[in-house]
């Protein structure tokens, strides 16, 4: 499903046309942020755990090539077939080839943001393979022909009445029914049939362990397990940054992940896949898709530490009021805004500006990514690379000129204040975005400097 590329500010204007809905969206996500606070504040060593997680991931990135080789070796020993994909296209092709070889035309898929990033569903659809997303939230957005709006809560933007409508149309539930239990039961029946009849299942990967060649998938619903354990072919797609060095490091990450994500002490299922089931084929696709280049950017590489908990989205006051789709990428919110310019600077030039740089994202990040500092740095890079709108360039250069000369500054300030006092309509009008919902500040006759000269200066 392709998101129409638009810019964040315009999409936000659209999203804010229905203010009660914005309030609802904001409150829902804020509730999750509060649950996260409660869970994390209940662990005395929380900040220490974040530090450990950060250091483990720093170590992983610093030895990534060695760990990848180690992981590949162990996974092969375990009987897993390992594939390498340089980019999205190659990933999709590998998945298709595996399915094609097995004569599979229908596949179940549990949540994988990587496959969203790669556009796998559309690719397979074009090649005659039906994919059913089995995470309830993902199934809902799939039926709605929309991309997920949140990496952990894919349909957080949807109201239950809208989901009821979709299910009525696609799953035959009663018209007008919107009770979550009723709708979930309908999805359960529909997806159980899917699990039992699909010969292939694709899952994402939360963590892969270099030391043992196993990988861990975390879900609450159990859909990854239902899919994988009933299928003859299990394909696991993972970005190369998902590695961690040793099994015991899971102790740190599994303590942080669910608490950061939803405030749960752990996800219902943390499944450790080490070897294929007897008679089953298990594949891992290691995907680069820009990550190895990203790794070389000193200012930005530590975004690759991300464990996809979504805490930065839940806490982001902008995300909560603009919705995930305004970020026009598989990964939205603050982390999306620092990851996506690595893939396509031009398309994502708006995203690092979709922030007040309040820094809350950095504080909730369980692996201590300096998200808001990276947003600031991306702004510098994007402007240097020529992705700033022309009008902004002019006004910034102008501002730089005014503010570098005390005389010009004094004059400009005086003129602005005079205008506001005497001809306010020249500033307080429709052309001024500030004025749309805010009054301009009152302009005093005298600046502080003028006052100071009169009252203190000799």
């Amino acid at each position, binding site marked *: 499903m392709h998101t129409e590329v638009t810019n964040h500010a315009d999409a936000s204007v659209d999203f804010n046309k229905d203010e009660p809905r914005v309030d609802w969206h904001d409150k829902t996500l804020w509730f999750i942020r509060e649950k996260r606070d409660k869970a994390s504040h209940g662990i005395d060593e929380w900040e220490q755990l974040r530090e450990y997680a950060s250091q483990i991931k720093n170590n992983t990135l610093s030895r990534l090539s060695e760990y990848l080789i180690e992981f590949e070796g162990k996974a092969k020993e375990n009987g897993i077939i390992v594939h390498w994909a340089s980019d999205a296209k190659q990933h999709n092709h590998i998945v298709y080839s595996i399915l094609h070889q097995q004569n599979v035309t229908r596949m179940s898929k549990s949540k994988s943001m990587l496959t969203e990033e790669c556009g796998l569903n559309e690719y397979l659809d074009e090649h005659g393979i039906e994919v059913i997303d089995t*995470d309830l*939230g993902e199934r809902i957005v799939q039926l709605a022909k929309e991309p997920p709006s949140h990496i952990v809560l894919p349909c957080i933007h949807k109201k*239950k009445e809208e989901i009821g409508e979709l299910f009525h149309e696609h799953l035959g539930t009663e018209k007008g029914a919107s009770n979550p*239990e009723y709708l979930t039961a309908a999805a359960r029946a529909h997806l159980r049939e899917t699990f039992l009849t699909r010969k292939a299942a694709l899952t994402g990967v939360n963590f892969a362990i270099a030391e043992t060649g196993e990988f861990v998938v975390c879900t609450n619903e159990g859909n990854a397990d239902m899919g994988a354990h009933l299928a003859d072919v299990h394909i696991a797609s993972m970005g190369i940054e998902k590695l961690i060095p040793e099994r015991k490091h899971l102790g740190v990450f599994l303590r942080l992940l669910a608490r950061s994500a939803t405030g749960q002490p752990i996800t219902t299922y943390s499944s450790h896949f080490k070897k294929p089931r007897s008679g089953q084929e298990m594949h891992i696709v290691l995907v680069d898709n820009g990550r190895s280049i990203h790794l070389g950017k000193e200012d930005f590489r530590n975004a690759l530490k991300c464990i996809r908990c979504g805490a930065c989205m839940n806490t982001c006051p902008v995300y909560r009021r603009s919705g995930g789709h305004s970020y026009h990428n598989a990964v939205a919110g603050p982390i999306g805004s620092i990851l996506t310019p690595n893939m396509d600077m031009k398309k994502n030039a708006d995203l690092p500006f979709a922030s007040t740089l309040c820094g809350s994202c950095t504080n909730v990040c369980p692996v201590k990514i300096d998200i808001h500092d990276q947003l600031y740095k991306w702004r510098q890079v994007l402007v240097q690379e020529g992705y700033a709108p022309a009008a902004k360039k002019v006004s910034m250069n102008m501002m730089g000129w005014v503010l570098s000369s005390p005389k010009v500054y004094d004059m400009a300030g005086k003129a602005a204040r005079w205008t506001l006092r005497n001809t306010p309509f020249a500033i307080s009008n429709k052309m001024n975005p500030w004025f749309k919902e805010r009054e301009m500040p009152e302009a005093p006759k005298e600046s502080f400097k003028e006052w100071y000269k009169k009252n203190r200066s000799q």
Partner: protein
Amino acid sequence: MSREKILQQVKENQPLLSPLPVIDITVTMDETAILNQFLSKLEMLHIAAFLANEYDDVKDIIHRETNGGRFVTTISEFRDMATLIEHSTEIPHSLEDVQAAIIPAHFGVAENGAVWITEDLVKYRVLPFIAQQLIVIVKRGHIVANMHQAYEKIANTSYDFAAFIAGPSKTADIEQSLVLGAHGPKAMMLFVVDEN
């Protein structure tokens, strides 16, 4: 070859070595406190928890708390109330109509209420996921305080598939309303049984 290209590029771009931390989290709780924390987490996770002296007590409670249907177990002591699975000889799909699965777990984790199971304990990987109801037996002395202790215990033990399970299958994808039984078990019972 993509493999060489990726590895080469990663090698060129990876930063200077950054050391691994020494993970040192001390636990101050005694065994009683650990058990109590475990039990309180189970409640949070919508797991019906019971302390029992012996298997007969467990069976009484199961009889009392469950309705009929196909019961399976991988614990031989329960063969009188459930079909014993000793090996995985059928296709896993054959478990589709299982009402309840009675399985053992290696240990439980107090900080999050999770239990650790490995494939050899459940015979079919899918069993704890496909049953309508999951009934887990843990020995009383086998509760660890936190995930660090859990992985110390797991250490280098070998398994083909393993999982931490912390409750019935659940979802809150529809307007954040919690619903139990997304795909897997709709309910879970956990028995902490005295070792004999």
